[in-house]
């Protein structure tokens, strides 16, 4: 299959541009003028004779309008149908749909129309609460509000960040459950009503900004009851909305209690850990499904084998609130060997532009057991060299070495607590 990559002027040297059969510049560095520039993206697809557009996992990946515009121009959007994106991608609506499907959700509001509405709702469910972008992901447009006094400022910054990131400034509110685990379920559905899950991923190692740093599959120490509940709810929810293509349902897990949080109607950053333990190429499956092919297998055909961990290598300074680092990568060496996978767009001499997410690589390690996967990941991280900017490599190694991670007993408060103890950041620990 031949591919056409799009890129901004700031990404001209990026590896994805070099590896595609063709590449087209769609605008200057700033996101609204390039990666969110729908006319230029559609025009590129049309003049290069594309059949389909894979939207990746950022920018327009969960934009129903974009999916509809693709359809209007005879292009296949590799993802769910626009109406399903609207129902499930919009997080406030998704919760209502989930409640209809009998799936447990955290107490939360519909879309908030004003600060005053936010204040009223927070009084009902009690502080602390979370403001979340309804179009959001990756921690963008999300704010913790601990008291009424913080609401106005948090509401303003969450809506502004959501608008800048997703062209959709709407936010909703959720009760903040203290120290749950963030566990998500990977699903695949075809256009004929067949739905399967590909197990769960534990994504509880999150920065104070709620951005994930380390993910693994399967989730360690998850009770059989909680796992069964998660997987069952995910499949039930997808059947309820006639979901097709790849998707992820995110849950908060506290003991055996499982609460649906949101659904990402796209492939996710951390999908490789699932690919490693299920030996399924999820992106290939997405393309097959979008082309109208049936899944061709059932739940019992999918067998989990071994354990996989992903570490995100970000151009960030962990000693300075994970401040993003832009600049030239003077030297880059990635690890290799059996059970080690590297997904990246950078190389020695590449420049990290200031416009985008700071993730420059993902390193994924597979092992027959969790211990083996951890050992392999540690070796892979030590082999990795990135010079020119600060990265999260050493910090990931520190996390892997903690007793909490070793024992697989951590929740979303783990990393903020660790940072607070080390004095690395001045932030609220979610404890």
């Amino acid at each position, binding site marked *: 299959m031949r591919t056409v990559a799009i890129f901004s*002027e700031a990404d001209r040297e990026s590896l994805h541009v070099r590896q595609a059969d063709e590449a*087209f*510049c*769609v*605008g*200057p560095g700033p996101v609204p003028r*390039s990666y969110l520039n729908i*006319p*230029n993206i*559609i*025009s*590129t697809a*049309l*003049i*290069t004779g594309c059949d389909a557009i894979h939207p990746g996992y950022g920018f327009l990946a969960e934009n129903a309008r974009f999916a509809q515009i693709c359809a209007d*121009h005879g292009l296949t959007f590799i993802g769910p149908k626009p109406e399903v994106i609207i129902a499930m991608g919009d997080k406030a609506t998704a919760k209502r749909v989930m409640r209809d499907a009998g799936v447990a959700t955290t107490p939360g509001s519909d879309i908030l129309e004003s600060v005053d509405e936010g204040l009223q709702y927070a009084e009902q469910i009690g502080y602390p609460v979370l403001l979340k972008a309804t179009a959001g992901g990756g921690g963008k447009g999300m704010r913790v509000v601990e008291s009424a006094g913080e609401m106005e400022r948090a509401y303003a910054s969450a809506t502004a960040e959501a608008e800048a990131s997703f062209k959709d400034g709407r936010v909703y509110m959720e009760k903040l459950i203290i120290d749950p685990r963030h566990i998500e379920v990977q699903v695949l559905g075809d256009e004929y009503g067949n739905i399967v899950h590909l197990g769960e991923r534990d994504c509880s190692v999150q920065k104070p900004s709620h951005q994930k740093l380390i993910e693994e599959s399967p989730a360690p120490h998850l009770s059989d009851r909680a796992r069964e509940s998660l997987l069952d709810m995910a499949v039930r929810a997808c059947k309820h909305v006639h979901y097709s293509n790849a998707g992820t349902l995110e849950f908060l897990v506290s003991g055996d209690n499982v609460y649906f949080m949101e659904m990402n109607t796209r492939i996710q950053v951390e999908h490789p850990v699932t690919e490693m333990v299920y030996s399924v190429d999820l992106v290939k499956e997405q393309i097959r499904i979008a082309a109208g092919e049936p899944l061709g297998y059932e739940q019992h055909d999918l067998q989990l084998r071994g354990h996989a961990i992903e570490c995100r290598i970000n151009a960030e300074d962990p000693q300075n609130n994970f401040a993003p680092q832009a600049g030239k990568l003077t030297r880059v060496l990635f690890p290799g060997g059996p059970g080690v996978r590297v997904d990246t767009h950078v190389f020695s001499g590449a420049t990290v532009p200031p416009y985008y997410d700071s993730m420059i690589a993902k390193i994924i390690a597979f092992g027959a057991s969790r211990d083996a996967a951890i050992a392999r990941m540690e070796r892979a991280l030590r082999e990795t060299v990135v010079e020119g900017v600060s990265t999260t490599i050493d910090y990931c190694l520190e996390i892997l070495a903690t007793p909490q991670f070793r024992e697989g007993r951590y929740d979303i408060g783990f990393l903020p607590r660790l940072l607070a103890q080390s004095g690395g950041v001045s932030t609220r620990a979610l404890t």
Partner: protein
Amino acid sequence: MSDEHPSPGVAQRVRALAELFVETDLLRLRIERDGETYELGRKMLHRDDVPEMPHDLASIEAPAVRADQIKADLVGIFHLSRPAPSEGDLLESDRELAFVEALGIRNPVRSLGAGRILAIKKADGDPVEYGAVLFEIDRG
């Protein structure tokens, strides 16, 4: 030129020479007559370059020669407007040179002023990306 404040006659002669010079491909022209020396120079530049003249020519009111690049500001198919412009054409003022057709919409590409077309960088019907150089215009 030796006089920093040339008489109207001198200025007129220089202007006439400059206009002739612009129409040629000459890079430098030096004329000595009646004890006066006129020297005109040309240098091919990109938009971002600063026009540079030899120090001894700095006071001549010769036209500053400057090549502008007209770039595509959207993705689409490039078409020359009719009558089709050619390399070497003189443009007396701003005019439409071409258009980029994108999603069925005709997006004009204008010369953005007077000049001479040094190069047409795309052929009629070529797909163009954002930032693609379409024309080089001598603004001299």
